[in-house]
């Protein structure tokens, strides 16, 4: 498993994920910098992501949408707060409304990615910070559907196999 360690801090509302990849830093960095690579892993197979904009520069924005199994769409954006290639970058992650503007009253979270060479590969540390418990709950209630649908699909598969 590439994930080495996950640390959750329910009081600070942060989650830290430490992952180790065999690939060098340049390739892990490129997987985030290149939207065609990023969309191959950002969303789950049941909700693939498509990046229609990816200005990987400080102050730049990305816009993406994820499409669910029934054609429903969830639109999001990144705003790049800082970039220190190839060591670290930080983004604000939020939802977009149907008009393509950041959805009003919707929570945002920040994600900080750091990369360093380790054991011939790359160690990546991601720290996600949620502004409030309510924001975390809203973010998850929106993501819940995807998880529940995938889980239910698996139950169907188990029943069909039995």
């Amino acid at each position, binding site marked *: *498993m*590439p*994930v080495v360690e*996950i640390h*959750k801090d*329910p*009081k600070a*509302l942060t*989650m830290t*994920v430490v*992952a180790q*990849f*065999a*690939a060098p830093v*340049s*390739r*892990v*960095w*490129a*997987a985030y910098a*290149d939207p*065609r*690579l990023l969309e*191959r*892993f*950002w969303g*789950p197979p*049941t909700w693939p992501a498509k990046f229609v904009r990816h200005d990987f520069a400080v102050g730049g924005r990305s816009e993406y949408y994820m499409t669910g199994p029934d054609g429903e769409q969830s639109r999001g954006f990144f705003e790049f707060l800082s970039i220190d290639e190839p060591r670290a970058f930080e983004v604000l992650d939020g939802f977009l409304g149907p008009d393509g503007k950041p959805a009003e009253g919707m929570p945002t979270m920040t994600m900080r990615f750091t990369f360093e060479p380790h054991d011939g590969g790359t160690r990546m540390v*991601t720290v*996600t910070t949620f502004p409030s*418990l*309510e924001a*975390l*709950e*809203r*973010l*998850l*209630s929106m*993501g*819940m*559907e*995807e*998880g*529940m649908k*995938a*889980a*239910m699909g*698996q*139950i169907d598969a188990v029943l069909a196999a039995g």
Partner: protein
Amino acid sequence: MLSYNQMVVRHQSSADYLDRLFGALADATRRDILARVMGADASVTELAARYRMSFAAVQKHVAVLERAHLVTKRRDGRAQRVDGNLSAVRRANSLLAQFEQIWQARIGRLDELLATSNQGEPNAGR
């Protein structure tokens, strides 16, 4: 998302309970009600005002959530108050656990991507 499913199954193995839990969460209105009362409790009347449906319909949704043990109801004078069922920190912890599943899966996909496109330069896969 396999890991998400496994987490749910490990947590509650009773098939009846899973039916109730999945059934309760399979509806967008109920998920929305749940998200609201997880943040702060609300009366059924306050909830009903937020949806384009009758008071009775909202009451039914709340009852489904209650049977799945996702919310509790209590009397407060003439009002029925609905609350999420866990203390704030436990709740945050369980919510963070769900985020953990999302990240586990995402990093697994990134690892696969890096393993499958390992020839040539970083952008050779374009």
